């Protein structure tokens, strides 16, 4: 049976709960889990002060309640699955390298910073800096998948070097800023300054987007590999039309102040 953690007391300030992760809870009994340390602001408290613990983790953890102020869930996760019924706080799945996290509600900023593997699905919206590098780090997300059905805010995939980020809704500004490699698909609209300072990598959008002057238009074409990506995310429940799968895309390259080997593909039959 799986482990169920239900929030019984809403934290007043962010609760740092990086212990909630299959790697750390597998096989641990209820009493021991309830005694694990979490930080409520700068107060060291027990997990049981906030959560009702039921069952035992056999690789899967279910979380219930308004977790919008609960941070670092699934940090450094390598295996297993976490299912979060409501909203979730910052730094979800930070540095995770395996396993899967599903969020039924919305997620805050910093979803899966510096992720190297595994998969995160957010059914609602998410905040800033999805799959990004922490400030000062040279490399952000390196592998894995982040699938967000709703909208996100700024700096999606900041300094990303690998993996896939797919956004069902719109993104804010600076999508793919400093990108080194990897793929970002935005089915909605993107904000401004997309791909600024990108070296390599691909940003795809189904809508027209303002381009910064250091990007140049190359051609309009029908990239075969894109069909596989789009079919894949359609299978995950995202809204992709046959026209988009088979359609033409305008290819821009940049950022010319860097390597000029990044690309932004904009759906041409809009």
């Amino acid at each position, binding site marked *: 049976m799986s482990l169920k953690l239900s929030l019984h007391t809403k934290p007043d300030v962010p609760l740092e709960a990086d212990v909630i992760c299959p790697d750390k809870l597998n096989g641990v009994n209820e009493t021991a889990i309830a005694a694990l340390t979490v930080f409520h602001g700068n107060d060291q408290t027990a997990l049981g002060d906030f959560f009702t613990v039921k069952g035992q983790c056999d690789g899967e953890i279910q979380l219930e309640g308004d977790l919008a102020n609960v941070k670092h869930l699934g940090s450094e996760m390598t295996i297993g699955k976490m299912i979060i019924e409501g909203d979730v706080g910052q730094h979800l799945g930070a540095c995770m390298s395996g396993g899967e996290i599903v969020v039924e509600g919305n997620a805050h900023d910093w979803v899966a910073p510096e992720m190297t593997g595994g998969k995160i699905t957010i059914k609602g919206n998410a905040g800033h800096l999805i799959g990004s590098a*922490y400030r*000062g780090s040279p490399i952000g997300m390196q592998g894995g998948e982040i699938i967000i059905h709703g909208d996100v805010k700024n700096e999606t995939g900041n300094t990303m070097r690998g993996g896939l980020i797919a956004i069902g809704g719109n993104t804010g500004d600076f999508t793919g800023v400093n990108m080194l490699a990897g793929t970002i698909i935005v089915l909605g609209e993107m904000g401004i300054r997309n791909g600024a300072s990108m070296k390599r990598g691909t940003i795809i959008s189904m809508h027209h987007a303002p381009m910064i002057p250091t990007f140049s238009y190359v051609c309009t074409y029908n990239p075969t590999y894109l069909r596989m990506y789009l079919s894949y995310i359609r299978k995950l429940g995202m809204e992709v039309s046959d026209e988009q799968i088979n359609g033409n895309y305008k290819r821009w390259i940049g950022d010319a102040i860097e390597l000029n080997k990044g690309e932004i593909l904009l759906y041409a039959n809009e």
Partner: protein
Amino acid sequence: MLIKLSGGTVYDPVHGINGEKRDIYLQDGYITRKPASSIKIDKTYDLNGKIIMAGAIDIHTHIGGGKVNIARMMLPEDHRADLVSKTKLTRSGCGHAAPSTLTAGYRYAEMGYTACFEPAMLPSNARQAHMEMADTPMVDKGAYAMLGSDDFFLRMLTAKKDREAISDYVGWIINATQAIAIKVVNPGGINAFKFNQRKLDLDEQNEHYGVSPREIIKSLARAVRELGVPHPLHLHGCNLGVPGNMHTTLDTIRAVEGMPLHLTHVQFHSYGTEGDRKFSSGAAEIAEAVNSNPNISIDVGQVLFGQTVTASGDTMRQYAGHWHAHPKKWVIMDIECDAGCGVVPFKYRDKNFVNALQWAIGLELFLLINDPWRIFLTTDHPNGAPFTSYPHLIRLLMDRSFRNDMLATINKGAAAASILSSIDREYTLYEIATMTRAAPARSLGLKNRGHLGGGAIADITVYNNIKNKEKMFEKPLYVFKNGEEIVKNGKIVKVVTGGTHTLRPDYDKSIEKSLKKYFDRYMTVKLGNFKIDDDEIVEHGNGNIIVQPCT
């Protein structure tokens, strides 16, 4: 409260006490003479067999100001790898090469240090530097204002302003920025970098202003002396890190014509061009020049192996060094009309010829310079290594066989190129006490610090007498700050704030007329806002201001 430190072995070079058994009495934060036998002693520490020295003083450590914060922001890996939890007494922090302010203060105190001086405070960054220093607990602080690449000063030189006017400006800067000394970094070179010059030797001209580093050094050294600033001009010379720069350093020593001058992190300025790799040690020649010029003092800027970050005002040389950044990221930044800064993370490797020879050159300097009153123990934290490596460095100086063991592990070519194995000298505890306490206090003009005589502030460190000097110096038995026990067995037992040392030299206030015009025309802040009030430093409950006298 009268405290007796009973029966310890005292090293107090100011009073010529070299390992003698003495009792020391503390009252109200000061060291007092032996009280009359009728007076009750409130607390006695039995320190038989323990070593007693004044609290240590770091004359050159980058603990505040813009560049340190850039290093912190740029290096999340430095923080992740070194997390410090809060305790009942101390707050949390992190960082190895660029620790957070609180952590830096705790670590210094736990190592027996009671005062630390930030050597590169840009006047326009002074507020930030003072706030960070005020946030650094446990130790006293102070900062050197950086001049020499600022447009106002260079304009004065170009306009051939008289020396009084220049002194007035320097005096105004010390007062306005709450500094205790004057630093110059790559004289005129940071400014020249902005005009696309990529090197500037002692007699080369800054193309825009038409002045040379030699003129800048002489002018500032003179102003510092005329204002009665106790600490000589603190010079980070031209050509840092450039093979062959030992000749520039020797020329610089001659250039000041006998005026007092402090050459900082001189290890980085003691390179020759001999050998297959055109990189060799100039330590012997530099040491000889220091030994024969009593107006010169130095600190070494020892390199120790491992990951660190270099943070310097020297944009010109940091830009040249950015190719070697590890991890690969760097910042070069312009700062108003003052100067700039460069932050480049770096890993010194013992198997790398150049790094290993740098290590050896630093040690050669320590061992070949005779007078411990004119050489200070520094790693130029964090440029050569983090300050937490001082105990290791002390062991290298005090323990010849340990030093030779270490020498056997470094790059073979570098070991062979160094004369280190032929040097027998081992520092004594008395010399260590001189170099880390008495001498920096005297050089900075801190009259009642760095010694254990009556009337001195009771900043005292007590060590266990252990043969392994690294173990001994990394974990003092007790540290007293202003007479209070703050560290026991290398752990904080009381958190204190420490004060800020400043200087208030006299100058002609009419200099503000031309300064105001300049500020209104060129600067982003108004003259009035540029100056830092005492209240700003004291305001947050972070200690007090200690005004040191001019000479």
